[in-house]
């Protein structure tokens, strides 16, 4: 909210700079988002126009003589048309500084002007918020008074934030109280004094009837003998500084009291209320209300309305109706200072798209005690405007005595970790308006009526801490203690992430919220979805309507978005989501959510035969390396299947015979749907099933030389390399240092219906040097194993 320091100074003495004050407010919990600096103004004094005459040489100029309390009258030429003798006006004297203007002696059409009469924009106010022409000061002002300091025109305006629990501080007096308490200064009092016509309100409590419990309390007060006119200048200045346009004295008092006390008011033209009374009730379907902003709004049962006997006259807490609006001809008004249930006002405000200054306070539920304060402050101000106040009537809940809360300095220290003395505690609480009594070794404090947010000791300690200052809390390291809570999930995730990074993959973070596009592309591609896609009921945009059912769409999106001649290696770790069809309905398990890792290699197309995919082999190499890092042991790739992947180019990676991950070439139909012409390989692993890391054990490498033998074999094309390797191992168990199929050939050089593969075998004994003769024998055994298990024979 906007807080003019000019207004704040009505209640607390300010000596510090704006920056220091802003810092103070921030440390009290009211961060100042902006310091609005006022223009530098000087040399403006209060004057009274003694004579006003037409300029002899210029029809549009007037020559004024002005009494500024000095021995000599000033002669001032003005082009303004709203000047008349007797008016009190601001006069910029020679040397004065105005907005973009320095005043010097000036001759206008032959007449020397010894200054300038001042209008709104010259002192930094919106022109159309004030008189069209020269500003009119209050008649009480002493001539010659420095207008800038008198009205505090140069004081800055803070725009500060008030937390949701402190609606009482959405007011000048509330913030003044905070500041005074923090600075240890006295707080000025709101002038609530007025004389009402005792017992003259014959309507009594029948004036207001509360039908809905969402109206907690309603203070009503009638005023008569009103004269609608422009508000005094001091009031208009304060409103304008607070960003509120001055209208007339009735509207202005209403706004002024809301800004100053925090209690929103509504004024009804009493004579226009059917039946002369108000009923607070639920809205009725079919009702409408023409609000002050000119809109005709449909009323819903959700709405709380304040109605007379024939129609709704106000959307509670939001805005009143034209039909009972105060106008120039209003003679009697009925004031409403109410407290509603905030949540209802907020829903109404949202439903009507009508956030107002009043609703911003009402939706936080106005403290019950504020109603009387607001009404009395308005009565004081209206009486000053000549109105006759009636006795106020209060309907609804009685004020609740706030709880008495006991607190000791030791408790303060135990919670805040800082020492606050008894004297400080007492001063802080008293400064904030608490009732404080010493009792035993501590205090019993009673919150002021407007502080319904202070209910328990912790609340009270927070108040003490705020005033003492959180900067006094010294950082301290708590002692470490043993506990049994597991970090396994986090450690697993970290292990996986680091393994991919170490293998040359870059981590991406894509959105869990997606448009319909991924699902549609999967459907286009004919790739089945693993389950129902979860849809948000109230998405913010179509881009973020669905939850991701796979990590692949996000990564594929990056492949198409950032095409590259260089291989692109990406991974992502995150949750995927489905509808859980089996348990739909059961609250907690209606959604299936699981943590996954997905990784991807994208390379430009390569020219190679159908039976060979070197990109896959590279990807497999990466994937095995990652698993080795994750698990501390090597995985084995066997043929597998997985939706999203090519059915003939998918492998399951087994660790000790258990599925650990699936890798493969991305289904070409899916790539086509994504418009990618790259070769893309992807892998998936579920973090939930992540194999544990097994610390690798030492096995002494053989100290004896190895003998390497290469075999060129002819074998049926469907025999996978892993079978050949297994057959080799089986043929010479215990002496195979390593075996690797390292080349494959299909084509005219090999007989039809066969492929040729090259195997490199490392023969090695752990206990002695292998002789050539022994090696030959092993190779013979290997060849017979190959023939038996794979139907393989040596190539001619």
């Amino acid at each position, binding site marked *: 909210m906007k807080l003019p320091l000019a207004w704040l100074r009505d209640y607390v003495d300010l000596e510090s700079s704006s920056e220091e004050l802003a810092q103070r407010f921030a440390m009290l*919990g009211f961060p100042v988002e902006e310091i609005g600096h006022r223009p530098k103004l000087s040399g403006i004094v209060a004057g009274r126009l003694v004579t006003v005459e037409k300029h002899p040489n210029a029809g549009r100029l007037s020559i004024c003589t002005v009494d500024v309390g000095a021995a000599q009258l000033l002669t001032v030429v003005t082009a303004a048309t709203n000047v008349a003798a007797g008016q009190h006006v601001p006069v910029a004297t020679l040397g004065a500084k105005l907005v973009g203007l320095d005043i010097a002696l000036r001759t206008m059409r032959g007449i020397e002007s010894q200054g300038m009469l001042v209008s709104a924009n010259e002192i930094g106010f919106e022109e159309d918020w004030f008189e069209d022409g020269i500003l009119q000061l209050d008649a009480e002002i002493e001539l010659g008074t420095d207008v800038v300091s008198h009205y505090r025109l140069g004081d800055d305006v803070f725009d500060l934030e008030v937390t*949701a629990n402190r609606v009482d501080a959405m007011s000048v007096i509330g913030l003044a109280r905070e500041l005074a308490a923090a600075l240890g200064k006295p707080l000025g009092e709101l002038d609530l004094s007025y004389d009402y016509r005792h017992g003259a309100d014959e309507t009594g409590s029948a004036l207001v009837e509360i039908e809905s419990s969402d109206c907690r309390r309603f203070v009503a007060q009638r005023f008569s003998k009103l004269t609608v006119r422009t508000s005094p200048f001091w009031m208009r200045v304060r409103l304008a500084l607070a960003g509120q346009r001055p209208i007339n004295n009735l509207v202005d008092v209403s706004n002024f009291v809301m800004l100053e006390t925090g209690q929103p008011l509504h004024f009804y033209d009493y004579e226009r209320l059917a039946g002369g009374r108000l009923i607070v009730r639920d809205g009725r379907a079919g009702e409408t209300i023409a609000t002050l902003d000119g809109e005709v709004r449909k009323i819903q049962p959700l709405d709380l309305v304040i109605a007379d006997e024939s129609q709704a006259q106000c959307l509670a807490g939001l805005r009143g109706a034209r039909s009972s609006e105060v106008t120039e001809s209003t003679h009697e008004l009925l004031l409403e200072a109410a407290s509603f*249930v905030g*949540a209802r006002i*907020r*829903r109404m405000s949202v439903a009507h798209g009508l956030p107002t200054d009043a609703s911003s306070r009402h939706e936080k539920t106005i403290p019950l005690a504020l109603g009387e304060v607001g009404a009395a402050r308005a009565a004081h101000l209206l009486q000053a405007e000549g109105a006759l106040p009636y006795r106020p009537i209060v309907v609804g809940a009685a004020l609740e005595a706030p709880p008495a809360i006991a607190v000791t300095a030791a408790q303060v220290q*135990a*919670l805040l*970790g*800082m020492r606050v003395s008894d004297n400080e505690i007492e001063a802080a609480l008293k400064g904030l308006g608490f009732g404080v009594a010493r009792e035993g070794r501590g205090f019993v404090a009673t919150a002021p009526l407007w502080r319904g947010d202070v209910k328990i000791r*912790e*609340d009270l300690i*927070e108040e003490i801490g*705020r005033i003492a200052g*959180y*900067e006094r*809390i*010294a*950082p*301290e*390291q*708590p002692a470490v*203690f043993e*506990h*049994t*809570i*597991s*970090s396994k999930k*986090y450690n697993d*995730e970290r292990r996986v*992430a680091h393994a991919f*990074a*170490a*293998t*040359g993959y*870059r*981590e*991406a*973070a894509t959105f*869990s*919220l997606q448009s319909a596009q991924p699902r549609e592309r999967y459907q286009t591609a004919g790739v089945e979805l693993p389950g129902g896609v*979860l849809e*948000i*009921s*109230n*998405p*913010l*945009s179509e881009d*973020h309507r669905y939850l991701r059912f796979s990590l692949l769409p996000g990564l594929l999106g*990056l492949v198409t978005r*950032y095409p*590259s001649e260089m291989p692109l*290696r990406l991974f992502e770790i*995150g*949750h995927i*989501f489905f509808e859980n069809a089996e348990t*739909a309905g059961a*609250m907690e398990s*209606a959604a299936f*959510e699981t943590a996954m890792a997905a990784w991807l290699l994208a390379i430009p197309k390569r020219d190679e035969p159908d039976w060979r995919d070197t990109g896959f082999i590279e990807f497999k190499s990466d994937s095995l390396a990652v698993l080795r890092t994750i698990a501390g042991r090597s995985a084995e790739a066997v043929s597998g299947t997985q939706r999203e992947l090519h059915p003939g180019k998918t492998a399951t990676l087994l660790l000790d015979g258990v599925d650990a991950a699936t890798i493969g070439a991305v289904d070409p139909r899916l790539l086509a749907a994504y418009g990618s012409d790259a070769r893309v390989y992807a892998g998936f692993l579920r973090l939930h099933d992540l194999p544990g890391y097994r610390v690798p054990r030492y096995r002494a490498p053989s100290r004896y030389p190895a003998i390497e033998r290469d075999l060129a074999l002819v074998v049926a094309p469907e025999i996978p390399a892993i079978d050949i390797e297994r057959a080799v191992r089986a043929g010479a168990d215990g002496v195979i240092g390593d075996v690797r199929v390292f080349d494959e050939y299909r084509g005219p050089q090999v007989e039809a219906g066969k492929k040729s593969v090259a195997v490199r075998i490392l023969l090695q004994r752990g206990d002695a040097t292998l002789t050539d003769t022994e090696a030959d024998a092993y190779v013979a055994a290997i060849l017979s194993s190959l023939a038996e298990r794979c139907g393989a024979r040596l190539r001619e």
Partner: protein
Amino acid sequence: MTNAWPNGRAFDFIGGTPGSALISQLTDQLKALGEQLETALAAAHDLAALEELRVRFLGRSGQVTAVRRGIGNLPAGERPEAGKTINEAVSALERSLAEREAELQGRALAAQLDVAIDVTFPAPPARSGSLHPLRRATEDACAYFERRGFAVVLGDEIETEYYNFDALNIPPDHPAREGLDSFYFPNGLLLRTHTSPMQIRTMQAHPPPIAIVVPGKSYRRDSMDARHSPMFHQIEGLMVAAGIHMGHLKGMLTGMCRAVFGPAQAVRFRPSFFPFTEPSAEVDTTCPGCAGSGALGDGANCKTCSGAGWIEIGGAGMVHPDVLRESGYDPDAVSGWAFGVGIERIAMVRQEVDDIRVLFENDPRVLEQLA
């Protein structure tokens, strides 16, 4: 017996000459050999030439061997002296060779130092992977807490209203619970709006004392712009034990900020309001962009903190007694603190990213740059 010298000269060095004369002749021969070697060494410019000379003079069928063979013709009494003379000469020859070898090796090494390459010639990029800036920020922060004995726990992103709101003392009519701020599913579940539900879940599963941090994704109905994202990451912290106070909270957050931003960080608490903590505070730390001065070197306002000297990183406070009670803890026996800090904010500030969307675009060039 004659000996043929490689240079073709031949002489007879025995033939009845008296012993002493023979020795003197031997000495002369050896001296001549020494001179020959010196001349040859001076002309030898590489190690291969030296090896050739070594073989020619000292090899098995070299010149010294030829001289040595002549000893057999000497009278037995003179042989030891002759042998000694020859051995001394051999040592001298070996020394000369070794000196020359050392000299040539030194020259060769010196010559290696004489070459230079263009070290600015571009290197092809090494294949390297990286962690996302958000994970790096998360890990740096969590690592600090782990060092202090905290567990790091993870939770689901779909939550119930009970864990996301009710148990955290957020009443049913709180604005955050309406469809304006939170993403709901038709069955009433919602995407968690903060990582705080894990406070309740962990406390309900484990008795005090407890010390955890919870990194993870959260979701709020904010439109995407330079500073907001409907999906974002938080780190939740929770410590509950006997005697825990707000100074411990400040101490741990100060440590975390130092681990993440650098050793000079300070932490400031500003009073605030959250339904699940009391007292509550906004957490600021020294702006790393200007070291807290609010100004840049040229006097301009620091862009990171807009001149404030502090940046806000999250909210914190002492766990509300109602929350402890709801989790089965006794607020009279234990107290605790909790915090939630924004990971995007940390990553953006320390890597000078000025638009949150950059973090989710995953431009490979940027991923590489920020790695």
